[in-house]
């Protein structure tokens, strides 16, 4: 009996539609965020994360409609990230029904935003997303991890562990740590990175990026020290169900909500 480790499916939303497919056997409209969210909620997901990848500014408001529609029908915590640049952006999402917001690039370009947002809304609803990679170090020196922005394309020179500590001190309530060097590879999280960050901060760390099988989810928690694990493709394409993932985590001795 203890606080359960969380399993969080992540859905990419472009102009109000889920993209990258959600493969449920009997789903009518895989692009409908409400239907996808309901399925995950009913299947036992502990939270849901929507990542707004809408490129065009014209369509930015569609995420508000998505959040409103999902929040009216899915009764688990909902996080929304992508394109958040101001306290006003955050207020709109929270008012629409999001429980937490994910701040990524804006935290790097304007670290004050994390402090402001946390003071306004409480740190429990501010998730700072950190995209990091292992970087080459001279032989014999310790491993180093660096922050990248703009979908992993732009190096920042920031040390990931130091940055994580700074974000926690600035009022982040949680960190969504994506192993950018693993994203899409299906070979598992960057566990040394995950462990380094989880040990350095005393706020929850959500591990993301690279999950290809259920053992990877378990490793993120048992080896990486994460409090929650996030995955997208293994669920969307029907390779595994939320129930199977929970069962595997339970089997590995991890406390989960079943």
């Amino acid at each position, binding site marked *: 009996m203890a606080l359960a480790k969380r399993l969080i499916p992540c859905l990419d939303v472009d102009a109000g539609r889920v993209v990258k497919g959600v493969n449920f056997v009997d789903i009518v409209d895989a692009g409908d965020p409400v239907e996808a969210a309901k399925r995950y909620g009913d299947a036992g997901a502990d939270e849901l994360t929507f990542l707004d990848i809408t490129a065009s500014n014209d369509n930015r408001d569609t995420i508000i409609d998505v959040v409103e529609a999902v929040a009216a029908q899915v*009764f688990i915590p909902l996080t929304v990230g992508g394109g958040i640049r101001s306290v006003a952006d955050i207020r709109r999402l929270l008012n629409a029904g999001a429980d937490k917001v994910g701040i990524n690039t804006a935290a790097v370009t304007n670290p004050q935003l994390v402090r402001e947002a946390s003071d306004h809304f409480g740190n429990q609803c501010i998730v700072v997303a950190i995209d990091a990679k292992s970087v080459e170090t001279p032989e014999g020196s310790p491993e180093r991890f660096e922050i990248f922005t703009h979908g992993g394309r732009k190096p920042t020179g920031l040390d990931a562990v130091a940055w994580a500590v700074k974000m926690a001190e600035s009022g982040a309530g949680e960190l969504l740590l994506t192993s950018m060097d693993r994203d899409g590879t299906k070979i598992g999280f960057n566990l040394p990175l995950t462990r380094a960050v989880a040990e350095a901060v005393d706020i*929850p760390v959500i591990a993301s990026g690279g999950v290809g099988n259920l053992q990877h989810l378990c490793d993120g928690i048992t080896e990486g020290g994460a409090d929650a694990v996030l995955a997208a493709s293994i669920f969307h394409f029907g390779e595994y169900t939320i129930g199977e993932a929970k069962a595997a985590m339970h089997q590995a001795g991890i406390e989960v909500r079943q």
Partner: protein
Amino acid sequence: MAETIAVVDYGMGNLRSVAKALSHVAPKSTVQVSSEASVIKNADRVVFPGQGAARDCMKHLRSYELQDVVADAFYNKPFLGICMGLQVLFEHSEENAGIPCLGLVQGDVRGFIKDPDRPHCKIPHMGWNNVQQVAAHPLWHNIADGAHFYFVHSYYVAPELAQWNAGETDYLNRFTCVIARDNVFATQFHPEKSADDGLQLLHNFAHWKLT
């Protein structure tokens, strides 16, 4: 006439989720999110939610002039407190260097203290944890003892009288996460974010007949 459920809006957090969840489980009831004392006074049932710091909650309750109507509901009709809507019922909170609260329940609100022996127990206590039902209650109907509910908080209530205690959770220490008596039920966790068990609890509240 259809029943009305008032959700007390005193500017502390988004109440959309609570209202939507109530409408979902009680489609025949009218759910009104309101800051109007008259609406709350005339409602058949009252939900008293709240997020944020104790100081702000008390300040807002005063500026909205809702203390009396909340107390009236607390004594007279089915009343459901959620999160800060549980904590401010007590006499005093340690938060913000000490804040006097409504004093409707004897006891105080204390902050979690980090335990070096349990570094994995972070503060706030955020996520799904087990709730032990320590007293029978109609609002536990169809909910398994030990079911998981969703928590987000850094402070917890400590009622003086054991008979208030209806649910307990272990986190850093064992604490009261539900108080209940007569017409009152109040939870530290968020039923509106606790999936099926949370909806069941809200359903039980919306259909609770006082005896």
